[in-house]
């Protein structure tokens, strides 16, 4: 019995909750749903211990609304749900994008469509995370593949939310959310935190949606003496509704630009063996674990296999993928869905290079399936 004192067994959902606490989350609103409920349950106990506040709302729509309301009050705020809840939240996620309110939405993906099979994993909400809300707006979505990564990316999600004034979606899946794993959490000093930027201009001059100089104007919390207006209508720099098309497009360009110009910070991934690869595997979430297993097996068999494990799914790392696949003719994209990130991979590198490996029956992609795809093509 040689225990490292800080190593412990922790569930993915709990790591997400602890990551939130570590990130400075002060408010959580949610509605129970398998397999995300544990996040709420842990935070119901933990948040008040650190002076924060938890509320269970009447549904998911109210939950995301309360989260945005709390964020407007200055709190780092989060909700957690699964597919059905994500669908319900879409309208207000769009509102958060429109009003540029930072918040974190966790979706622990289960097998859909519809109620599906609530206790089974899936990666079926990847496109819904990007495109579920009507209208055009960018979004950031992160996807961990281990318990420790869940902790880290939860912190990162809060940081990105505050840095870019945007909703951030954290896509877990049932495997990662319910899995317990040995994990050593970083000490508080090791964790890099972003606090919401504040303005120095006097209240009369404050423009919550200013186009210049920065693309991310500071958001002053309600109740701090900065009185201004927030609306889901198109608005001018002061936040007041506008009907002028020449005020809409600059805003829209800015909200896309604020993400695009920070891609180097936002795009998180692990790559290895890309240089000499004959075949590239691109995977994320629980499937990245199957893929990693398969990659190691294939390499043992003498295959040159490159591996790209994506942690940032949206914005899609176009350049990263293009670069990694540039020399190659074979890219395998395994997913627990009918092919979602594969669409983007195809868009970036061309349809005919891509071999999809899919299942959406509630079971993890087995390493053997990925291996077969590698071999079959080799």
């Amino acid at each position, binding site marked *: 019995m040689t225990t490292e004192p800080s190593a412990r067994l922790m569930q993915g959902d709990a790591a997400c909750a602890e990551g939130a606490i570590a990130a400075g989350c002060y408010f959580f609103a949610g509605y129970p749903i*398998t397999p995300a409920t544990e996040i709420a349950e842990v935070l119901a106990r933990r948040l008040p211990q650190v002076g924060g506040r938890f509320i269970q709302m009447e549904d998911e729509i109210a939950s995301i609304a309360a989260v945005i309301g709390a964020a407007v009050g200055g709190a780092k705020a989060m909700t957690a749900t699964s597919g059905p809840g994500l669908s319900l939240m879409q309208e207000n996620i769009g509102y958060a994008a429109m009003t540029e309110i930072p918040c974190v939405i966790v979706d622990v993906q289960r097998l859909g469509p519809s109620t599906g099979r609530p206790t089974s994993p899936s990666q079926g909400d990847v496109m819904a995370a990007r495109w579920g809300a009507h209208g055009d707006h960018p979004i950031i979505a992160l996807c961990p593949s281990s318990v420790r990564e869940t902790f880290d990316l939860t912190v990162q999600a809060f940081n990105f939310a505050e840095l870019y004034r945007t909703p951030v979606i954290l896509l877990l899946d049932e495997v990662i959310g319910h899995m317990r794993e*040995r994990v050593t959490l970083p000490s508080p000093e090791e964790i890099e935190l972003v606090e919401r930027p504040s303005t120095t201009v006097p209240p009369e001059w404050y423009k919550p949606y200013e186009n210049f100089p920065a693309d991310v104007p500071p958001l002053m919390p309600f109740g701090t003496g900065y009185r201004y207006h927030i609306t889901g209508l198109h608005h001018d720099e002061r936040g007041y509704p506008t009907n002028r098309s020449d005020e809409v497009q600059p805003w829209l360009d800015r909200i896309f630009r604020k993400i695009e110009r920070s891609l180097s910070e936002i795009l998180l991934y692990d790559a290895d063996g890309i240089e000499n690869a004959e075949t590239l595997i691109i995977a994320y979430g629980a499937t990245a674990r199957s893929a990693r297993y398969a990659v190691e097996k294939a390499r043992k068999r003498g295959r040159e296999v490159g591996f790209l494990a994506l942690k940032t799914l949206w914005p899609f790392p176009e350049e990263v993928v293009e670069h990694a696949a540039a020399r190659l003719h074979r890219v395998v994209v395994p997913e627990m869905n009918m092919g979602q990130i594969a669409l983007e991979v195809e868009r970036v590198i061309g349809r005919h290079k891509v071999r999809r490996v899919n299942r959406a029956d509630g079971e993890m992609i087995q390493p053997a399936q990925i291996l077969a795809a590698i071999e079959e093509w080799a």
Partner: protein
Amino acid sequence: MARRYEVRLAGTGGQGAILAGILLADAAIRDGKNVVQTQSYGPEARGGASRAEVVISDGDIHYPKVLQSDIILCMSQEACDRYGGQIREGGLLILDQDHVSRAPTTRAVRAPLTSLARQATGREIVANVVGLGMLTALTGIVSREAMEAAVRDRAPKGTADLNLKALAVGFAEGERIRREAR
């Protein structure tokens, strides 16, 4: 790759297969091992058949689920019917003979886990921990001390002693079987 040990613990909802998995995983960590525990169960958060899977290794664990079990503990007939056959050549299959009558192999280890639990503690609910004790004794996959520490820390409030007693009974039974097998 470092050696992977794959353990599957299966029963019906309420038999504590998942708790057993957590205890085993926790013990493995106390032994300085790497571990991943996953599970599957019935509708939403409750009821139905349930099973836990524990993968233990000295190295990284990528694929977190069982590919082929080294060890299986079956606490119900249904579980045994479903998983009993998936054991690898030379693996260990432990059956609670109070609940399992038909087994897929004659080389399974049978023990009346439920009766042992009742006799030792008066509570059948700790049959899972009896099973864990046996498993520990028969395989050494985790140390006895680690297992005890895990049970002590993780047992539901006020049930530590009860569970430790169950663990001891299981351990003794495992030892007995081992001796007999020699």
